[in-house]
Each structure stands twice: as C-alpha cells, then as structure tokens.
C-alpha cells in the first residue's frame, strides 16, 4: 500500500463516518458537526484528485456557507441540547431494507462493469483559466447560458428567501 492509497482510505472513512453520524446522531448539533466533517472529507477527496479549485469551492460554499446556515437555523428553532425524536421503528426498518438493497444492487452492477479509460484522463491538469473560459464564452463546449441562468436563479432564490422569512410588523 502506498501513501496515495492510504490517504484515499483515510478520506473515505472520514466521509462515510461523518455521514453515518450525521444521519443517526440523536443530538441535532452533533449531527451538524458530523455533516461538517463529512463535507470537509469530500473537499479533501477533490484535493486528492488534483482538482484544487473544486476543493476550494466546496470548502467555501458548503463548509463556510451551508453548514453555517444550518447551524444558525438550529439555534433559531431548537433549545441547545435538544434531543431528536426517535424514528418510527417500522419506517426505520423499511428504510434500512430499501437502502441496503439499493446499495447491494448498485454495488453488484459496479463490480460487473469495467470502466475503460479514455485518453490521458489520469494525467491531464485543469487550469482555473479553462474553467473561466468555458463559463464565459459561447460556442461548443462552453456554458455561458447556464451560467447566466444560475445567476438569475440565485437572485430569485435570494429575493424568495427574504419574502418567505420576513416578519411583517403589524401596528
């Protein structure tokens, strides 16, 4: 086993351990912190695959944005130390069976299929300038229209959030 492989399995156990704690922890704040660990692990996985830009975006948007938003909303809606209700046991059994069967099915499919590598996929490097060029140019292989659509979506989401969550003061 080389250092590269060992790093991958450390990162994978960090992601899966954090995710398991995030969906099973009985204290909601602990679940949020476990989600944070899992998301940092995913950023580390991107870094491990030499996509440093995506790793930075993941850290900024998920760890710095979404988890902080979730923790704020926990503090707005719960007492500290609140314990989450136990799941309904029959529903938990069905969910566990379904998820385990789905995982086994996909696992067996992946095991049977051999992925043929095309081109020099493993050695290519991604320049951040390429991402910028692809996002802001027209023509084939470029994404100007989806980029503008996403910016409109973010504006609409921002206005929508303010409209939904605002408290209208009555005299």
């Amino acid at each position, binding site marked *: 086993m080389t250092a590269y492989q060992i790093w991958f399995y450390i990162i994978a156990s960090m992601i899966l351990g954090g995710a398991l704690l*995030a969906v099973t922890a009985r204290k909601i704040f602990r679940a*949020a912190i476990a989600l944070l660990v899992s998301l940092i692990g995913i950023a580390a996985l991107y870094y491990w695959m030499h996509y440093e*830009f995506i790793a930075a975006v993941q850290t900024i948007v998920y760890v710095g944005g979404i988890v902080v938003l979730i923790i704020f909303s926990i503090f*707005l809606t719960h007492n500290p130390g609140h314990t989450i209700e136990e799941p309904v046991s029959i529903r938990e059994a069905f969910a566990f069976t379904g998820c385990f069967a789905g995982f086994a099915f996909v696992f067996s499919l992946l*095991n049977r299929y051999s992925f043929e590598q095309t081109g020099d996929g493993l050695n*290519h490097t991604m320049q951040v300038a390429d*991402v910028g060029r692809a996002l802001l140019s027209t023509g084939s292989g470029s994404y100007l229209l989806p980029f503008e659509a996403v910016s409109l979506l973010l504006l609409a989401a921002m206005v929508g959030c303010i409209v939904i969550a605002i408290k209208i003061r009555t005299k």
Partner: protein
Amino acid sequence: MIDQVPLTHILFLSTALFFIGAYGFLTRRNMITMLMSVELILNSVNINLVAFNRYLHPNIDGVIFTLFIIAIAAAEAAVAIAIIISLYRKINSIDPEQADELKY
C-alpha cells in the same frame, strides 16, 4: 499516482454516501436533519461527476457540472431554511408530520 486506486472504489464510496443520505431522509423526523441528508445525496453525485472527469474524460465538463450543482444546492438550502423558519413561526415545530395545514 492516482491510478493505484481504481475508479470503482470511488464509485463505491459515492454509492454508500448516496444511500446513507437516502436512509437519513426517510427516517428523520426533523426538517433540518432531512435537509442535511439531501446535502449528502447532492455531494455523492458531485463525487461521481468529478471522479468520472478525472478517470475517463480528459476535459473540464464534469468540473463545470459540479460547480453548477454546488450553486444550485446553495440556493436550495437557503430557500429550504427560509421555509423552515417561517413554518416554525407558524406552528412552533419543525416536525414534517405536524405541518399538515394543506391536507384538509
């Protein structure tokens, strides 16, 4: 180098993450933790896209798709939390089974 870990191991990781997220979404009785499970599911899809981009497709399309998914997930989380807070003000609880005003 990276080819010491086969692509299927990364896909096993993302599959496990997806079904952990699905399990959490089906069993939790709290809207904020359900939102966390949805974030896990979206992240497993992102891992798939980035891994395929690294191993099979020497281009940057997968990275750009991942960027769009991250942006849309941020918008989705913000709207969901606005709805949760507004619902909490109205019914003083964030259990999805108590939010049944539209039912009758």
